[in-house]
């Protein structure tokens, strides 16, 4: 293809885009980026590489310092969401940018509701909403407030909204982070269909499998700079990883080496935590569960199957209304997370934005928050101690940028996730509950976290991990409990812990 020809098929062309955030952080350094009509283009890079920033500067949510954005042969200067939409760019941002207080239907049609005589036609809007969502395999009450649904549902709604805007370019920033395998498949079907209609799609993800499954070309960013653009077909995985990390990933072994297992766990001992008939009306049916020190228990199931609720009961966030919880064999009554914290529990919630980070506070303050809460208000951690703790975990988890005083809300999504993990690791817990710990985390850090989980286990920590990635869960779990419709339906141990077995249990009806 010669130069002129390729320019002609370019739908979105970015030239020399630069962005320095207030405070002097250079998030983008003269990045070039091109999306053609009818292609799915992956935008890749480590956490904090500048992917989301690139997207936001294209749509004008954050104003660019320098550079050009061409759409369909015309230079555009959108200054806000409305102008970007009008120009033909539909975007799903990384943090779901929808309104939890509006109904699902209103979210889908905000600003373009069907009206008659100036009045919104609710019925028509509801009908079209249901139709639209059915295309994504979602059958929900569209008149319910969006906030009542899990992030996953919200994400699908956001995607549906963007798709329905029928723009020329569709940008999806980590749409699959909170989806399970089935939903990802649905999304891909829709994407392929849009692609065939000539739409250009930008797709950000940390799942390299997905890149290979659906993308035509890819662009890699590192530290705000452009690393390169490649055609996906024929690009070896190792090569891609090297592009992203700038180094080889020594043994990205998702290999199922569960060799460490039986050596550590003493099955005769009193379990660290034991749930007996624990349950809550309307949340989870009563279940039994055993957590032993040095052992990883995985919770698997579809979205909405009650995994989070299980975790919340054990951590005392919600109060159980039946059954009992035993810690070291003695029955305890948790009146709230504080009680759990005192017992040495830790809990990384799934919904990072609303339940995890405290956006306005600095990274340091976020990391020491639980530690401080356990110490009580009267015993403040000295600044020196705070810095020590923060620095240690920033290094350990490679949180970037490594500035502990930056408000955490300004960090990239993946780095926020790491900081929340750090908060609990800092308390040195004996029982740790992780709800989707690797969500939005890049390949490098992903491997890092899994290594960390194993190490913690070896040190005698009892772990309860919830993950939608079955492959990931079987890679480190000693046992897997499968949930369906808020019931604990199966428990797999030992050699039963295989991807296949887990998937069958999930799917069984």
């Amino acid at each position, binding site marked *: 293809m010669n130069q002129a020809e390729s320019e002609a098929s370019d739908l979105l062309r970015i030239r020399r885009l630069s962005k320095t955030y207030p405070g002097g952080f250079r998030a983008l350094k003269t990045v070039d980026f091109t999306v053609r009509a009818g292609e799915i283009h992956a935008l890749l890079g480590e956490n904090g590489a500048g992917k989301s920033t690139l997207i936001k500067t294209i749509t004008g949510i954050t104003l660019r310092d320098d550079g050009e954005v061409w759409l369909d042969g015309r230079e555009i200067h959108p200054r806000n969401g409305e102008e970007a939409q009008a120009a033909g760019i539909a975007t799903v941002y990384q943090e779901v940018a929808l309104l939890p207080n509006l109904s699902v239907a209103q979210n889908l049609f905000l600003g373009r509701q069907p009206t008659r005589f100036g009045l919104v036609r609710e019925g028509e809007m509801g009908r079209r909403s249901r139709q639209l969502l059915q295309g994504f395999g979602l059958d929900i009450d569209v008149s319910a407030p969006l906030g009542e649904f899990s992030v996953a549902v919200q994400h699908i709604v956001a995607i549906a909204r963007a798709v329905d805007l029928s723009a020329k370019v569709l940008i999806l920033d980590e749409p699959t982070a909170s989806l399970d395998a089935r939903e990802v498949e649905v999304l891909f079907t829709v994407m392929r269909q849009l692609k065939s209609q000539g739409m250009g799609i930008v797709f950000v993800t940390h799942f390299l499998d997905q890149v290979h499954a659906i993308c035509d070309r890819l662009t890699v960013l590192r530290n705000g700079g452009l690393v390169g653009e490649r055609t996906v077909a024929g690009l070896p995985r190792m090569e891609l990883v090297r592009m992203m990390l700038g180094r080889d990933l020594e043994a990205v072994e998702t290999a199922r080496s569960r060799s460490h297992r039986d050596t550590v766990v003493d099955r005769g001992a009193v379990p660290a935590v034991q749930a007996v008939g624990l349950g809550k009306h309307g949340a989870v049916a009563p279940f039994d569960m055993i957590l032993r020190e040095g052992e990883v228990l995985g919770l698997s199931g579809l979205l909405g199957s009650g995994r989070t609720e299980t975790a919340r009961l054990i951590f005392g*966030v919600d109060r159980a209304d039946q059954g009992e919880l035993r810690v070291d064999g003695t029955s305890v009554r948790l009146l709230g997370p*504080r009680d759990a914290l005192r017992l040495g529990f830790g809990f990384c919630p799934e919904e990072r934005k609303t*339940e995890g980070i*405290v956006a306005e506070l600095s990274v340091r*303050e976020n990391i020491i*928050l639980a530690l401080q809460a356990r110490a009580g208000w009267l*015993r403040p951690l000295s600044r020196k101690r705070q810095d020590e703790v923060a620095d240690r975990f920033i290094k350990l988890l490679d949180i970037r940028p490594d500035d502990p005083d930056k408000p955490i809300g300004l960090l990239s999504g993946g780095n926020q996730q790491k900081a929340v993990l750090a*908060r609990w690791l800092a308390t040195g817990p004996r029982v740790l509950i992780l709800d989707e710990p690797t969500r939005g985390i890049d390949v490098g850090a992903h491997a890092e976290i899994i290594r960390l989980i194993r190490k913690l286990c070896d040190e005698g920590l009892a772990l309860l991990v919830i993950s939608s990635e079955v492959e990931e869960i079987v890679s480190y779990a000693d046992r897997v409990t499968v949930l369906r419709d808020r019931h604990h339906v199966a428990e797999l141990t030992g050699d039963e812990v295989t991807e296949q077995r887990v998937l069958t249990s999930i799917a069984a009806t």
Partner: protein
Amino acid sequence: MSIVLPRKGSAQIGAFILILLINWLVSPQFFDLRLQDGRLFGSLVDVFNRGAPVMLLAMGMVLVIATRGIDLSVGAVMAISGAVAATLADSHSIVICLGAALGVGLLCGLWNGILVAVLRIQPIVATLILMVAGRGIAQLITEGRIVTFTSRDLAWFGGGSLFGVPAPVVLAVVALVVALALVRGTALGLMIEATGANAEASRLAGIDTRLMTVAVYMWCGFCASLAGVIVAADILGADANNAGLWLELDAILAVVIGGPSLFGGRFSLVLAVLGGLIIQAMNTGILLSGYPPELNLVIKATVVLVVLLLQTPRLIAFKDRLFRGTR
């Protein structure tokens, strides 16, 4: 060459200085100071002295606002504690009298805190209840009259002085230091900010958000009652009908001038207090100016808007660009 100004608070300090300078233009003897009966005397002293109640209220209010709350009842609490102090002043020792007045303030705060944190009533309505009923309670104590007293001990809180500094200013400064020590010397500040910024996340991190909420309302009630004692001591009597009337708006305004958003999170005690001073400097200026009182509100409106526009992000960005240009 760069001008080193603290980023945070430069707008407020600037506004305060600007208003003082304007006052000086309006009234040339504005900065004059002399010692009168062992007490500093002058318009500048008045700004601090008269501003003490609002400064105290702002100190309390800023923490409440940091937890996404609001306390409308501070004016009423001032009236109650003033009434209590004045009724007890001549019959009981100052310790009992003060203890009762401040205790009542804490109690009022506890009530508000429970309504907000335990019964989960929206703060504005929760505190509105005490705003309405509280003034009634104060009037009930005084039976609608102005209860006067002669106790010199109590009078010190209004008219006394320490090393020439008027007692209200001393009290406000002490309260500020105590508050700073409490909030920044312990982990309370962090916990309050976390609660205000994201209550759910803070709860999951093990912070007792309920305790934090109750505590800030109690602190706010305490500050209000101290302000009430000062106001009563100042006129040697408790005027339950008028003490602290509409002062809640001034207190909120002070906090907002001091910077934090009304939607919780980061706060600065010092800037809130500075906000209170800015309001009082403006009021004193109006009084010194000699304009007819019909103009008071129009002047106030103008000043408030100007002070605010001074610290809007747009203007700050503009200013930054200017400074960067000169560097």
